[in-house]
């Protein structure tokens, strides 16, 4: 088992590298960082442009640039931005912001998603099932940026109704906030609710749909009938035998759910003014910055693969059939 997981990890590392290279190469090919410089009015002297080109290693072949970048990256130096800031200095802060959002969104999403899905399956064709199904569909059909905008709208109404700033929708803390630990916590939470809700809603809808169908599959299974035949009530059989088995396929979904989350997270950060990795990516592309793009890509690839690997681990934990292989 451990060997199986180790093997997967090696494979994933290779994929990570290739993916990062791909993004690096694509960015290096399509970006034109000195274009903006040239477009300045009056145009800067040729020497300035050449200096910038040399600084950004624009005239070297892309594979070589990648190897140089990677060599530094392994040692913790992800290079400098187009405007000559250190990426490594900013990186930890941005990762912290993104991870907080992602993890909270995932935990809330999976937790509520499973509960909603199971409840839907057990109460199939009742009103609550139809309602849950309908809302899942609506949320899955709403792009995250729209959902974020709508939530902002709702929060504004709420704040107006309450006559106080209950929910805040820009930034992750109030700039220059002063106060004790408790006040700081409240301030954080006020900032946290909307972005988390924005990404969690999609996750809940996504997981609940699959949990519902996994549970329905289990509802008709022979082993559930066996469990009832030996004297368990339907309810007990459902929870002890049904739910436990229906959780197994959710482990594999986890990896994909996380992928979804990353895209959604980018929008959320952007809309709510959280300076995380997603926000950085958009900024990097707007600035034609290869190093930022490659760094964020590496981060995303690592996240996707870690979630894939975790997915394998969960799967092995949940299903004895895999465990013993």
């Amino acid at each position, binding site marked *: 088992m451990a060997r199986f997981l180790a093997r997967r990890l090696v494979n994933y590392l290779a*994929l990570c590298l290739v*993916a990062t290279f*791909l*993004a690096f190469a*694509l*960015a290096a*090919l*399509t*970006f*034109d960082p000195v274009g903006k410089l040239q477009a300045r009015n009056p145009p800067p002297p040729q020497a300035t442009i050449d200096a910038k080109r040399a600084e950004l290693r624009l005239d070297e072949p892309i594979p070589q640039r990648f190897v140089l970048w990677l060599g530094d990256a392994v040692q913790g130096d992800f290079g400098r931005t187009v405007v000559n800031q250190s990426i490594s200095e900013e990186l930890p802060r941005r990762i912290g912001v993104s991870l907080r959002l992602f993890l909270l969104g995932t935990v809330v999403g999976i937790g509520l998603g499973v509960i909603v899905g199971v409840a839907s399956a057990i109460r*199939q*064709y009742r009103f609550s099932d*139809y309602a849950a199904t309908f809302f899942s*569909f*609506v949320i*899955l*059909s*709403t*792009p995250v*940026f*729209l959902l974020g*905008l*709508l939530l*902002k*709208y709702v929060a*504004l109404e709420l704040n107006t109704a309450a006559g106080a700033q209950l929910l805040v929708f820009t930034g992750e803390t109030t700039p220059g906030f002063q106060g004790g630990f408790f006040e700081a916590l409240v301030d954080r939470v006020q900032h946290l609710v909307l972005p988390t809700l924005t990404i969690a809603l999609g996750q809940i809808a996504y997981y609940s749909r699959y949990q519902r169908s*996994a549970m*329905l*599959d*289990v*509802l*008709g*299974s022979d082993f559930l009938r066996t469990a009832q035949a030996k004297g368990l009530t339907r309810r007990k059989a459902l929870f002890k035998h049904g739910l436990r088995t229906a959780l*197994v*396929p959710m482990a*594999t*979904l986890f990896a*994909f759910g996380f*992928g979804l989350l*990353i*895209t959604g997270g*980018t*929008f959320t950060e*952007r809309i709510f003014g959280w300076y995380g990795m997603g926000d950085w*990516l*958009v900024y990097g*592309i707007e600035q*034609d910055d290869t190093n930022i*793009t490659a760094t*964020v*890509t590496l981060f*995303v*690839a690592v996240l*996707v*693969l870690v979630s894939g690997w975790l997915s*394998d681990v969960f*799967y092995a934990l949940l*299903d004895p*059939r*895999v465990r013993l292989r």
Partner: protein
Amino acid sequence: MTTTDVTGGTGKSVPTGGANPVDVPLDAIEAETEGVTRGTLVLRRFLRNKLALTGLVVLALLYAVSLTSPLFAPWAYDEYDYLSFLQPPSASHWFGTTQIGEDVFAQTMRGLQRSLTIGLLTAAISIVIASVVGACAGYFGGWVDRGLMWIVDLLLVLPSFLIIAVISPALRGSSWILFVLLLGLFAWMITARILRGMTLTLREREFVKAARFMGAPSGLIIRRHILPNMASLMIIDVTITVGSTILLETGLSYFGFGVQPPDVSLGTLIRDGSTAALTTPWLFLFAGGLLVVSVLAVNFIGDGLRDALDPNARRGRNVREDEDPEVEVERA
């Protein structure tokens, strides 16, 4: 939706290892019920699904209206009304106007048409790539399979949003068709995986073996037996792709990585409207509302098709009792 039984388990084994996001209806292959042809049965099931039917009607109407709107709308999308800036909806500007006097209705219709067209075209491209890759990987196995699946894995590691966003600077100033191609190029992986899984089971089905033992060449077997038997899954997947592509496209356009001005899509409209969302909601609410409604319609159609095409769907399934022990194939 009807209220028939609750027993329908698909009896499929849990997918192992390689994650598989969508439950593969292995038995979507099976036709059943004596006396009625499959086509009528599918149609009957689909028509009974009120939500799916509504979705179909709504989507068709939206697309038709968006295509024909230049014929009856008072303003064109690239026309400016210098007499009305930032006006709420009125008799002459049904959805209001923008800061620079553009007609929001005309723009929204244009954007809707663009977004739906992009969704449909992308899904078409994606399904072609996916079926070729999936069927070949599954049928031939060996290094073909390993190679293709490695590419799929690689592309799945990078969210397609990210890749397209990175390439987008190259799109500046080029046609939206190029954007569609790009979307199609990164939308097929999950479908290919599902189709590969299905091909793997189909390949072991006896009618495929029978064809092989007749001496039929591989290409013929794939064309004649494998692909037609995956048709239902492909149809379902096309609808899913249409929905997800529209979401992806509008998202990219929202950030300026997608459809480029002067062209508009629902995404660019929402972005332009969202800056002052709280004071002039008509700028984005119509675009946003239509976006949600059309994707919702597509999703309902997909769900209805899944129920109609997959005989193991829980609704409206014939309750047949006993016998024929289904041999559970444990997928290694």
